[in-house]
């Protein structure tokens, strides 16, 4: 099974090369991979339907408890079949849709990478492995949305999609880790058995919320749904594949997958059902107000995802069954409709339904696919969509623990919107009067109409023979989500009951909505503030706000003034020292001891202080250098007084050299100018004095205790005996700690090279790179 996942990535790597060598036939060649995968997974159908589970695990990162674990059960099988099956159709479709595009090779690469990632998500049985593939779907979808990269709108749409799903992904990561920590396992199939541990732990609610944010962002649930309509900037094959049939369902998939371990609590019911319900209504309401085919489809997709989430939130066996059937229903018809929309766009040059009509004549095959799909979407018998809708109504009516009436009403409303939208995307373009389109319409190539027709065919077949084809398999799918076995019966006829009435009401109301669209639109338009003030705007304002704040912060801290940088550093150090010293230091131990100080020592100290003050006061450079020299020579003198002749000699000679160099350097520099204001001088003065005071205090504290050197006695004893030198300081320098000296002369050498280079290598003497 690992190969099944990895093969997609491998194929992605070579796809551009294959495309380069076979050009026209690359689509037909590359489709073999998804087809083969479809066949491979389909071959397990019987086993799975019998209730078996197929699991594989490979060690990957044992040090972080991540194994490459895969499991095929009813739920994942449904997903991988959709992903590989629709994937095959899309590869073909894309090969024709983008036939002349110079970057078609890259398109294949991204598409196959996406497919492989999606398979990984559906198959993963380790929380982190799942997350890895999850993120890969985000990245590959980013690349696909930005495919038309010359357009700013594409780039921005892709960015928005990535940021929203990426941020959601990070929340998800945190959530998954919390679950992993709480459950003490990272294997997904083991989580259900630790349901109690997870749900009773203190981390349940944060973990749940974080995971839900991730799922909702991915599956375009309110209030994270806004990226999806933008993502329609992608080439239509991408929209058909990612943004309707597969990727956006990853969030739904994960909800379904974690339902046995996280579901069933009050929080789950409230949040998941609520968000799903809200999403299906809001998006459904917006859908039929658009005229762009892809926009309509995008909003109905969001609405459909809302229905799925809504059902999973209810979480009864019936609701889960409804969710799973509807998931299949939606993937089939929405994939088909997107491809149809792309074909129409491709062949007529527009996808504005106001400009379209009577295409059934010129595009007969496409029309068949579109018709079947739309009927399923509207929920007419004998198509699978009808069955799906019936189960939904059954499920809402039976949700006794919650509010069955409210739920049913919401589902009814969402479905009515759906019917109207279905009518809009097919009746309008394919029937009625022919309209003038930018291109003269004619049938799309085989590679493009085969997809809708095949998907439409499946919808029909599944609808007619639902019990035969889907019963056993869906029993397993539902069991995987529901967490216990559940009997699944499917069929078109359930008798005359409320559900049927609801179905009829849905159709009639939907039809009316479509028929009186022109009258209704002006009434509802003012209600539709969501698009202007909704989460999309909030996101823009919020994100821009953060970016503005960021650049404000940047300009505040990185302001270009060295003195502020320095001030911040000194201030930080001083604050830390004050904080530490006031809380942890015993100041009583300080002893001010000046009894032994000799007169000349006082004089020396006075000289140093006077010289230091002179430096700050003088306006002459030479005076400052001279005063600096005085400080240096005084230090040297101090070394003489206190038993450090080597130091004194070094200090004397270095000081002389420094003064010479400084004079040479400063010779050409201008006079001291007072740039700063009195106020800033006062402020700097305070900070400087504060720091100086801290240092003084510190020295006083330290010198109040005697020093017990652990090292010097050894040097005193062994300097001559072992190192053969009478001058201990020199012996330390060249022997005991000779390595320090090695570093020291290296510093000197480098400084000399640097000075040489600075003085001799000037930009003017250098030709431009």
């Amino acid at each position: 099974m690992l190969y099944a996942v990895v093969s997609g990535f491998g194929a992605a790597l070579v796809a551009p090369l294959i495309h380069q060598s076979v050009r026209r036939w690359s689509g037909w060649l590359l489709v073999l991979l998804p087809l083969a995968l479809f066949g491979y997974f389909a071959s397990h159908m019987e086993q799975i339907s019998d209730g078996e589970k197929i699991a594989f695990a490979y060690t990957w990162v044992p040090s972080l408890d991540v194994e490459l674990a895969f499991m095929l059960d009813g739920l994942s099988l449904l997903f991988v079949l959709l992903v590989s099956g629709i994937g095959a159709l899309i590869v073909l479709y894309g090969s024709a849709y983008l036939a002349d595009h110079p970057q078609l090779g890259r398109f294949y690469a991204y598409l196959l990478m996406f497919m492989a990632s999606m398979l990984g998500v559906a198959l993963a049985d380790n929380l982190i492995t799942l997350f890895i593939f999850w993120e890969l779907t985000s990245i590959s979808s980013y690349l696909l949305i930005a495919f038309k990269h010359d357009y700013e709108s594409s780039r921005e749409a892709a960015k928005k999609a990535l940021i929203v799903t990426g941020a959601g992904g990070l929340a998800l990561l945190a959530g998954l880790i919390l679950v992993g920590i709480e459950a003490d396992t990272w294997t997904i199939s083991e989580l259900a058995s630790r349901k109690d541990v997870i749900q009773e732990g203190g981390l349940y609610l944060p973990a749940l919320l974080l995971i839900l944010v991730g799922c909702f962002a991915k599956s375009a649930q309110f209030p994270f749904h806004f990226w999806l309509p933008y993502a329609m900037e992608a080439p239509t094959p991408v929209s058909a594949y990612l943004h309707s049939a597969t990727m956006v369902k990853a969030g739904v998939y994960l909800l379904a997958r974690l339902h046995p371990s996280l579901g069933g609590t009050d929080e789950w019911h409230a949040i998941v059902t609520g968000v799903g319900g809200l999403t299906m209504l809001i998006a459904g309401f917006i859908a039929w107000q658009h005229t762009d085919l892809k926009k309509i489809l995008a909003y109905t997709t969001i609405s459909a995802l809302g229905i799925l989430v809504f059902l999973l939130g209810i979480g009864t066996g019936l609701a889960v069954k409804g969710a799973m059937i509807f998931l299949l229903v939606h993937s089939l018809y929405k994939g088909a409709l997107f491809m149809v929309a792309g074909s129409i766009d491709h062949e007529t040059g527009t996808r504005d339904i106001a400009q379209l009509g009577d295409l059934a004549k010129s595009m007969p095959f496409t029309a068949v696919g579109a018709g079947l799909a739309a009927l399923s979407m509207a929920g007419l018998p004998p198509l699978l969509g009808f069955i799906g809708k019936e189960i939904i109504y059954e499920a809402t009516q039976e949700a006794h623990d919650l509010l069955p009436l409210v739920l049913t009403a919401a589902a009814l409303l969402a479905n009515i919107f759906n019917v109207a939208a279905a009518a809009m995307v097919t009746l309008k373009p394919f029937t009625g009067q022919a309209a003038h389109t930018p291109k003269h319409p004619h049938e799309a190539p085989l590679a493009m109409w085969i997809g809708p027709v095949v998907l439409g065919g499946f919808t029909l077949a599944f609808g007619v023979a639902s019990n035969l084809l889907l019963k056993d398999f869906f029993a397993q799918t539902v069991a995987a989500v529901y967490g216990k076995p559940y009997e699944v019966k499917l069929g078109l006829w359930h008798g005359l009951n409320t559900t049927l009435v609801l179905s009829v009401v849905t159709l009639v109301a939907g039809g009316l909505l479509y028929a009186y669209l022109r009258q209704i639109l002006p009434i509802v338009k003012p209600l539709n503030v969501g698009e202007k003030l909704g989460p999309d705007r909030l996101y823009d304002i919020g994100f821009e706000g953060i970016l503005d704040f960021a650049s404000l912060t940047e300009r505040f801290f990185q302001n270009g003034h060295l003195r502020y940088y320095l001030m911040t550093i000194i201030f930080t150090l001083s604050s830390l020292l004050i904080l530490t010293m006031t809380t942890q230091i015993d100041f009583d131990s300080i002893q001010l001891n000046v009894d032994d100080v000799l007169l000349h020592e006082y004089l020396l100290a006075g000289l140093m202080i006077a010289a230091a003050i002179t430096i700050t006061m003088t306006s002459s450079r030479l005076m400052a250098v001279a005063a600096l020299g005085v400080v240096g020579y005084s230090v040297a003198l101090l070394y003489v007084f206190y038993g450090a002749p080597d130091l004194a000699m070094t200090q004397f000679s270095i000081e002389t050299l420094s003064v010479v160099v400084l004079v040479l350097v400063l010779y050409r520099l201008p006079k001291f100018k007072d740039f700063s204001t009195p106020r800033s001088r006062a402020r700097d003065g305070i900070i400087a004095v504060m720091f100086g005071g801290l240092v003084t205090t510190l020295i006083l504290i330290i010198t109040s205790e005697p020093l017990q050197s652990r090292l010097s006695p050894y040097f005193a004893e062994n300097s001559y005996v072992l190192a053969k030198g009478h001058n201990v300081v020199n012996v330390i320098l060249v022997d005991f700690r000779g390595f320090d000296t090695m570093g020291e002369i290296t510093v000197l050498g480098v400084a000399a090279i640097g000075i040489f280079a600075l003085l001799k290598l000037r930009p003017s003497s250098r030709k431009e790179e």
Partner: protein
Amino acid sequence: MNILLILPILVPFITAILCLFFWGRVHFQERLTVAGMLILLIIGIALLSDVHENGIQTAQLGSWEAPFGITFAADMLSSIMVTITGLMGLMTALYSVVGMDETRERFGYYPLLNILLMGVCGAFLTGDVFNLYVWFEVMLIASFVLLALGGERAQLEGAIKYVTLNLVSSAIFLMATGILYSVTGTLNMADLHLVVGDVKQPGLVTVLAMMFLVAFGIKAAIFPLFFWLPASYHTPPVAVTTIFSGLLTKVGVYALIRFFTLIFVHDTNYTHTLILIASGFTMVVGVFGAVSQLEMRRLLSFHIVSQIGYLLMGLGIFTAASLAASIFFMVHVIIAKSALFLVSGVVNRLSGTYDLKKLGGLYKASPTLSILFFVPAMALAGIPPLSGFWAKFALVRAGLEAEDYLIVAISLFVSVFTLYSMIKIWSEAFLKKPKVTPGQINFREADWLQMLFPLAVLAGLTLVLGIAVDPVYQLAQEAAEQLMNPTLYVTTVLGGE
């Protein structure tokens, strides 16, 4: 005495001296340097495997027993860092052969590069506080010169800030070292671990911890001490920026990790909480700086700051898991960030600018370069299965396990903006239609390949580290366990007991 501990100093040092002798012969220096770096890398790997097999290794320089002489000690952390130093040195040297202008090469570029690496290796291996100061200075002076080499206005302006603030750091470091000796009577780190507890005024040890925190914090570019970095890192040629970004701040982080696991562990509630606070601010302010930039190298420079926050986060949480995560993060970020800086160099070679507003069209112009940018960029953003994901995952997991929820939340928040800024470069420099048409790839094929080679290696490594993560992560875990159990280090260095 394990000779592997000294060779990482000697090899670049001798290479540098030879380069000085062959001052005028630039091409010979190139070859010499590449060879030297290769040897350094091999030594690093040998040292790593030696420490892995036989535990912590030490060398007493001049045969003077610890703590009286200078001790070199290599635990897993040191060995990992030396290895990565060798790798970075080799990649930078290879890139420089084509990517560095000959004028700079004539003015001592190669000897300086070697000495820089010598200082870095010395800092990673020494077990003596004052000796660490010396290696810091070796590294610093070499970096000063490399930064200013060429003498362009931006370089000089950047260098003044860099030099001044780093000298302040050195002065604080020196003060702290002097005080450390006067309080404890020793300079050997292992010995210090034993005696800091005996200091009569325990508060003084915390005061020292603060001084070292600030001194190393400046070098590591943590908040609010990082200003020198964004002011200067984008000014020298890209090869120099690359080696700086890869190694210099990391030496600061290394020193922080070393000191705050070995010496200053008496009051972790106070010290490590401060580190954690600093880490949060560093991440946020760094990434805020990055998203505000329109110059590619400046953007990347601010990211260095932000990433330092992540490295500190592991130290601040202070568990074996979090330290392991930080160490792995360090390896990852050195590789990924260097790759990105090298890409910016190639971008500049093609388009003549680093300005995102002017750049564009590279996605069409060079698919190879596009991949070589996209992979490390996504690695930096923490996208799986690249190296950065594991680093982030391990860190977040360690944080959640330690129940440090706030810092985890901050790190994830920052992560979104890291992604955003990488996408910004991608979108502007690669996808967008260009204002300045990228030049034809008009240098010789061999030069082009040679420029891309180190890039490909580094970008490839982010992928390899992501897929074959376990062996490396185990090394990081081993390193972290050694750090959390300092007795091991202490007994190995001081012998006996």
